[in-house]
């Protein structure tokens, strides 16, 4: 149960979601992943560590390099991906709220 909550916490963070999306189509080294973010390299490393700890990412040694790739099995286990669904509605409702606040002040 705890592990499950950890997984959801892991994908609730926007940077970690971005990392997962980045790795959706290819394996990458920590350096290559970090070059996609403005965030400091140690911060990206920390995100990678969290994603690896909850088994959303797997490490693979290839020569001297360590490549990260998505653990498809674990991703499938997080079957509901509630966070992305919630975000979609949250954005929609934020828009509604902004439009109606403006509507109110226009009257």
């Amino acid at each position: 149960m705890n592990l499950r909550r950890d997984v959801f916490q892991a994908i609730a963070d926007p940077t970690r979601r971005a990392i997962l999306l980045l790795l959706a189509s290819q394996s990458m080294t920590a350096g290559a992943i970090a070059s996609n973010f403005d965030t400091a390299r140690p911060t990206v490393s920390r995100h990678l560590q969290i994603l690896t700890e909850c088994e959303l990412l797997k490490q693979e040694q290839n020569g001297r390099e360590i490549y990260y790739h998505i653990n498809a099995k674990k991703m499938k286990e997080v079957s509901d991906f509630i966070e992305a669904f919630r975000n979609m509605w949250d954005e929609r409702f934020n828009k509604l709220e902004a439009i109606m606040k403006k509507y109110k002040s226009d009257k």
Partner: protein
Amino acid sequence: MMEQKTKIMAEDGKQELTITREFELPLELLFKAYVEPEIVEQWMGTKVLKLENKKHGSYQFETTDPKGNKHGFNGTIHEFVQNNKITRTFEMENTSFAVQLEFLQFEKLTDSTSRLTMHVIYKSVALRDQMLELPFAQGINMAHNRIQDILKQLK
């Protein structure tokens, strides 16, 4: 971190879910956003072809995606009580997704705040889970497309 205003309740193994959201809007304004076609168009990002706000009424929306493809949505209104509730069906046309039943409850919290509770019932547990996964899957696809676009530019 910003407070999460929208809450989703989706228990494992159930074919329903509940979406709750508190708005910094008086109840009347929140309800209006669901009733006035030109306002629905703005926040839903869709074209409203028909919206009959009454019992036995129906609605029809049409959305155009970035590629120019048109997607139709429609439903029937079963209950319509001003500033209180809307019960309706929702169907995505030309997809394998079955129609869903939606209970929308609008509540006044204070003079300037209100709450919407949306209780949605799907045809099966599997379908509900599929609908929950949809935004995440689309996110993956979008990222994939972005990567494809970048790769194309490199060529």
